């Protein structure tokens, strides 16, 4: 193998599994250490710079970082660090932050930008552009900003005060908000004097299910996202005693839990496919089950039964799943007799679609498959150069953190577009590699690997939460538990950096490494090397760090996979050929936030 180029900013970035997996590349271990040091305000700001909504995300993030977390790999029973809920610890305990945020300059730069939709994607664009002096106009059909974070995510998961606070941090930066304003025509917007337009309107259409009896039952059949929005805006505060929720995603989980709070006593979730194919996050499923909501699987709905004009329930068939060689699933009906489930109300939560009825099709904005706009995947620019898309409106429904990541990149494109710079130009990441050695056995980070298991977030009493939909279920970690959970982080950003010139090949690092990461051996092809290291390197997602040829004609090879970042290799190296250096990687934004 060729020697690893650690100058490539992505090499060490990739070692920081959580940060690499985070769509916005939030410097996770950096903020976790700040939390452990009770520097909550600083931890909050590190987050706010990256993802704009730390308090919201600390409660609701889809957390792609956690399955990626190294801690979950180092032993079979180990669970990842509670990265997401630690974010909340920073938000809950922070001090004054407003003064640390940039202000919009009084002198504008003369450019005007329209943002359609007030969800996290648009708000992120606004946050990034405002400090540069853009005049920003944000349109949303509702009376407050936040998009689906407000209309969809129930208050028992995300209290309104947290949402308001973080939406306001952005809109207070001199954003012209046009609430209660549904944009009916893109043409009208384009006819005004905006230099650029950003579309962050989300994926607003909930799918319906055409089954026998659907029409007759209409009064008691609800589309999931419409149902949640009507609850959020207090248009609805009741539901029948018996409720069926169709669907296995997070929307279904929010619908069933909301139903329990509106009077639903026998709330049942029915999924047409197997449990293991359910789209909902495991923790959302657990929370639903904890609220006495049974989930049935492999039961496709067949028909609605209406008697005397009133919904009585639904019939379901039974299937089993079979997978072909390519893993493609087919649902095969079984011999089991159909099942009837009684219901006063049915909520259909089987997915969302994009819809742009308000964008005229003769403006030069081209649409492709699924009626999604045709975009440049890096710049988010549409086929009409001054129009950009982001969030769920860009490539279909995702989540808040993805919307924020899109927003940052779209903001860069808009900035370049308005300043006459090539839109394809991307900003290099900021990187910083700092030695951590303080003395013998002393590092600037807590290098010992603690043995604690993952801590569970405490919940409010169920009797209380089920009686009031606005009472938050999760109480968040207290400071002490937050500290202990933070200490579980392995500090994967503290890199093991190898200097060939200093190595005397004494093997001390090989001998001390608890997880057998390091090998000195003759070079070879990657597949061959992966087999003959101190321990087999079977995780192909993780790189091998390979040195140039040493005096004994061998090379040093380190498998990054289960390195604990314990620093013992550097500790035991007599010549400091191994050094622990903290790598801070940042996605560069339009304006400097921190």
């Amino acid at each position: 193998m060729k020697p690893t180029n650690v100058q490539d900013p992505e090499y060490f970035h990739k070692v920081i599994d959580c940060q690499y997996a985070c769509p916005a590349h939030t410097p996770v271990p950096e903020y976790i250490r700040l939390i452990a040091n009770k520097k909550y305000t600083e931890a909050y700001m590190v987050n706010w710079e990256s993802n704009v909504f730390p308090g919201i995300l600390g409660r609701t993030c889809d957390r792609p970082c956690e399955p990626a977390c190294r801690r979950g790999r180092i032993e079979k029973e180990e669970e990842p660090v509670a990265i997401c809920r630690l974010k909340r610890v920073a938000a809950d305990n922070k001090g004054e932050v407003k003064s640390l945020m940039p202000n919009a300059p009084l002198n504008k730069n003369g450019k005007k930008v329209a943002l359609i939709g007030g969800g996290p994607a648009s708000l992120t664009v606004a946050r990034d552009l405002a400090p540069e002096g853009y005049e920003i106009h944000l349109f949303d059909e509702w009376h407050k900003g936040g998009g689906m974070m407000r209309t969809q995510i129930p208050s028992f998961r995300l209290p309104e005060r947290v949402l308001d606070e973080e939406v306001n941090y952005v809109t207070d930066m001199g954003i012209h908000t046009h609430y209660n304003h549904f944009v009916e025509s893109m043409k009208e917007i384009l006819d005004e004097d905006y230099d650029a337009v950003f579309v962050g309107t989300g994926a607003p259409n909930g799918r319906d299910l055409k089954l026998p009896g659907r029409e007759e039952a209409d009064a008691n059949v609800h589309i999931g996202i419409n149902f949640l929005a009507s609850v959020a805006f207090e248009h609805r505060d009741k539901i029948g005693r018996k409720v069926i929720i169709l669907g296995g995603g997070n929307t279904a989980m929010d619908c069933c839990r909301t139903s329990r709070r509106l009077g639903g006593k026998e709330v049942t979730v029915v999924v047409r496919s197997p449990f293991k194919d359910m789209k909902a996050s495991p923790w959302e499923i657990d929370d639903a089950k904890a609220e006495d909501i049974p989930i049935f699987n492999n039961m496709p709905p067949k028909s609605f039964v209406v008697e005397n004009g009133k919904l009585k329930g639904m019939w379901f068939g039974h299937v089993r799943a079979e997978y072909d060689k390519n893993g493609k699933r087919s649902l095969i009906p079984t011999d089991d007799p159909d099942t009837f489930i009684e219901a006063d109300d049915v909520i259909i939560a089987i997915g969302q679609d994009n819809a742009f009825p308000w964008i005229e099709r003769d403006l030069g904005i081209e649409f492709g498959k699924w009626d999604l706009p045709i975009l440049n995947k890096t710049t988010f620019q549409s086929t009409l150069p001054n129009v950009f898309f982001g969030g769920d409106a860009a490539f279909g429904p995702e989540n808040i953190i993805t919307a924020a990541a899109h927003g940052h990149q779209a903001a860069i494109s808009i900035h370049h577009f308005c300043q006459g710079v090539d839109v394809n130009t991307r900003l290099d990441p900021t990187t910083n590699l700092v030695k951590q050695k303080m003395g013998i056995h002393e590092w600037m980070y807590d290098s010992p690997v603690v043995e604690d298991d993952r801590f569970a977030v405490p919940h409010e009493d169920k009797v209380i939460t089920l009686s009031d939909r606005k009472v938050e279920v999760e109480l968040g970690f207290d400071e002490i538990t937050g500290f202990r959970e933070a200490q579980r982080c392995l500090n994967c950003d503290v890199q093991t950096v190898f200097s060939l010139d200093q190595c005397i090949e004494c093997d001390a690092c090989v001998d001390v490494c608890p997880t057998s990461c390091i090998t000195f051996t003759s070079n070879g092809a990657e597949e061959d090397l992966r087999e003959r290291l101190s321990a087999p390197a079977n995780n192909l997602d993780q790189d091998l760090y390979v040195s140039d040829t040493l005096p004994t004609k061998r090379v040093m090879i380190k498998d990054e996979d289960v390195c604990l970042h314990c620093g013992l290799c550097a500790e035991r190296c007599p010549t400091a050929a191994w050094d622990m250096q903290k790598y801070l990687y940042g996605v560069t934004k339009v304006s400097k936030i921190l």
Partner: protein
Amino acid sequence: MSFIKPIFRHPTQTKNKAGFYKSDYEGRISTLCAGCGHDSINASIVAACYEMNIEPHKVVKLSGIGCSSKAPAYYLNNSHGFNTVHGRMPSVATGANMANRELTYLGVSGDGDSASIGIGQFIHVNRRNLNMVYIMMNNGCYGLTKGQDSATADIGSLSKSGSRNEFSPIDMVSMALESGATFIARSFSGDKKQLVPLIKAAMSHPGFAFIDVISPCVTFNNNKGSTKAYDFIREHIEVTSEFDFVPIREEISVEYEEGTQKSVTLHDGSQIQLSKLYSDWDPSDRNSAMEKLQQSKANGDILTGLLYIDPGSQDLHSTLNTSTLPLNQLTEEDLCPGSATLEKINTEYR
């Protein structure tokens, strides 16, 4: 603070046939100097015991005094241990071994501990062919007391402060050949590929198995001009043979070139497979080994690998016809067989 060894090991680590993970053979985290050759030997001992499927509680680790003799703290946490006074490990090992022949005796010592204060004990344990492994961690100096030249330091070797050693070295391998050891090898701490199978073979050998392991002292004797420095050893090292140890009941997988092949079957049926690099050397002939050793010394080479083995070795227990049962398992009946037996014995002397 990073001087705490995490409990986590590589997730693919597996149990050996005795039901132990490799980590079950580890000791506490080393407090030897970073880069000390002794640590590599410790790691080799851990690897050898794991690969030999030895139950950790069936091992006795012994040592004298020195950095090398501190080493047992860093391996085999679950074994018996005895840290004796300076140079006196062989006599304690002899006593323990005589009391219980069922355990594996693994002694480590330094060149100071063995070749200076302990030289008398060393010679006698050789000539008694006590069934034990004796590893001498050889760094040419007294590491623990800040690097004074030891009796194995070569003439002309420079110390860290620049002073030249003027005294003739004791070659402990020749000494062992002379004094009756039945398994003799030399190795280098930086060559685990050779050292681990050597330790495994030594543990299978019924008799006194001596391994002189050159093990640089990074702190006091790794300077330019020292003949025990990493660089110097790497430049002058020569091997006697390609070497593999095949435990009993395992397939022999190595194939060496015709004519160079030599295999030695040990007492328990395990085998040593050698591919000799010298045609004029026979590892089962004491004189031939002696000659080869002198030759390479004259050439300025450091000869490593297995040097001599006596396949017909008879250990001290056989010679003395001692109790096969460990003393702690003898019952009152065995120990006080009664007046009739006493009478019988007494008549033998009449």
